[in-house]
């Protein structure tokens, strides 16, 4: 390859990466600044201290919010994987009359935006007395049409011979499910798991509606609180909160970029 072209591409890559990543880098930088740096619109802190972090953990129950976010995201991830893999197993392997129709019904839910149903869902959750509980934040998201679709595509790529060989060995349906199908599809389960965790962690509107106090409030709503309480004066503290909130998902993305790319594009487009 000619070097002129390579240099150009590297230049474009560096510039794009810098622009795209600037807001995140800058947020980290501000999180170490004192009020004077912020006021002077400095790009880097004049001195390095963790004061903002100490302050943010003491002024709002950030750890508590983080714990809530972890609990909610993990529960939704487990719930989605369980519900979706069971349903996908039927759609991929067990034939019965009306299966195709049911599958279309599942796909149809993709056409219904969550925001269009949130009013009634809020009324339902309120009626069930789930407001301010993990149930409200998790159970409505256990069934994901996208997850079912993604896993079914992957299950369908399992050679049918394996399913038949397992039948000859005398495995029951459930044994085939957890001893053959699930281990075989480990990678796609991981993909879906990461994706569910990310989306749940970053959920904003629904937690805003169903949490009215700190008991199960997630970190995202915590950020909103922080921003309204602290704004104007203490941007360093707000940014410290932001950095704490984005760290887990950013790390997840850094670890799993390749995996996500493979898993999601195969499911979405085949």
């Amino acid at each position: 390859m000619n070097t002129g072209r390579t240099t150009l591409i590297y230049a474009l890559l560096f510039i794009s990466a810098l622009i795209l990543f600037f807001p995140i880098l800058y947020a980290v930088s501000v999180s170490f600044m004192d009020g004077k740096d912020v006021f002077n619109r400095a790009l880097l802190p004049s001195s390095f201290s963790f004061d903002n972090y100490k302050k943010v953990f003491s002024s709002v129950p950030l750890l508590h919010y983080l714990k809530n976010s972890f609990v909610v995201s993990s529960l939704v991830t487990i719930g989605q994987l369980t519900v979706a893999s069971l349903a996908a197993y039927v759609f991929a392997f067990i034939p019965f009359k009306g299966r195709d129709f049911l599958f279309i019904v599942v796909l149809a839910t993709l056409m219904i935006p969550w925001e269009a149903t949130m009013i009634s869902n809020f009324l339902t959750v309120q009626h069930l007395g789930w407001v301010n509980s993990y149930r409200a934040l998790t159970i409505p998201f256990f069934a994901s049409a996208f997850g079912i679709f993604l896993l079914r595509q992957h299950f369908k790529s399992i050679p049918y011979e394996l399913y038949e060989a397992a039948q000859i060995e005398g495995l029951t349906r459930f044994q085939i499910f957890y001893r053959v199908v699930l281990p075989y599809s480990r990678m796609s389960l991981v993909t879906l798991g990461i994706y569910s965790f990310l989306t749940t962690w970053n959920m904003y509107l629904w937690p805003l509606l169903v949490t009215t106090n700190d008991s199960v409030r997630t970190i995202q709503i915590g950020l909103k609180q922080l921003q309204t309480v602290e704004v104007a004066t203490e941007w360093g503290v707000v940014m410290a909160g932001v950095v704490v909130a984005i760290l887990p998902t950013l790390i997840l993305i850094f670890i799993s970029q390749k995996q996500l790319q493979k898993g999601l594009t195969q499911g979405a487009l085949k």
Partner: protein
Amino acid sequence: MNEVMEKIERYQVPKKENLWQKTANLRTSILYLSPAIVLFSVFVFYPMFKTVYLSFFLTDARGNAALFVGLENYLYLFDSTSFKKSMKATWLFALYTVPSIVLISFFLALLANEKLRGIGFFRTIFTSTMGMSVAASAVIWLFLFHPTVGVLNTLLGYLGIRPIPWLLDSKWALVSIAITTIWMNIGFSFLIILGGLQNISQDLYESARIDGAGYFYQLFRITIPLLSPTLFFILIITFINSFQSFGQVDILTKGGPAEATNLIVYAIYQDAFINYQFGTASARAVILFFMVLGLTLLQFKFLEKKVHYQ
């Protein structure tokens, strides 16, 4: 009856099984599907019907249907300037964000698809905004846009651009939210488009190179046609996402100034949860549903066409 069935019936060895055994497949299937069926019924289908139902009623503050008003809620909306403003903002917002997201992501994916040393690092950076929550992103950009401490105007000043009243001016406010949204959405679109690019067989490029085709010839004759299903998929998804935007509005502008950024979901939220107008909020939600439905059907149509080509 044909000969085949006649023969089958004559020599068939009947299976001695009762209804219980006969329905084994169906029973296991229903058992395995039941969590999904129950959840979809309670949290997707029932609320969708309920929303349509509520949109024909005036409600009390607790969301109970109080008075049937037919299409009154819809007519009220279509007549109100506030709704028109909201719809205009919603579509304008889509226009600002969707093409930008697709083009920028496509550009980044083309760059990141080169086989160069350290390319994995750049791929990860370009994907990183997928891990950014809407709340965190909006707070960061709120700071960047800030009229006194925001660094964005300072940076633009280096390029000789005069300070922009980002969130204060009703025209710029929508642009500001659009910028935030574009930034947040690049990660996911980039990831999907890069995946699409890598699914294109390298043989095609090699044979094109043997024929002496240049970079842009390859781009327009091989890459774009073969990537078109992916690009279309991401176009529709981004479109739908733009209709669903909420958090950035809530944190950056609260729908203002002068309702200039009152996007449809924010309007639903305000109607229902600030003003307790569940009837008109539901009517808005139904309208949102049809907007998304239209886009989804468009996508299915396109996919069907693609199947015909193969």
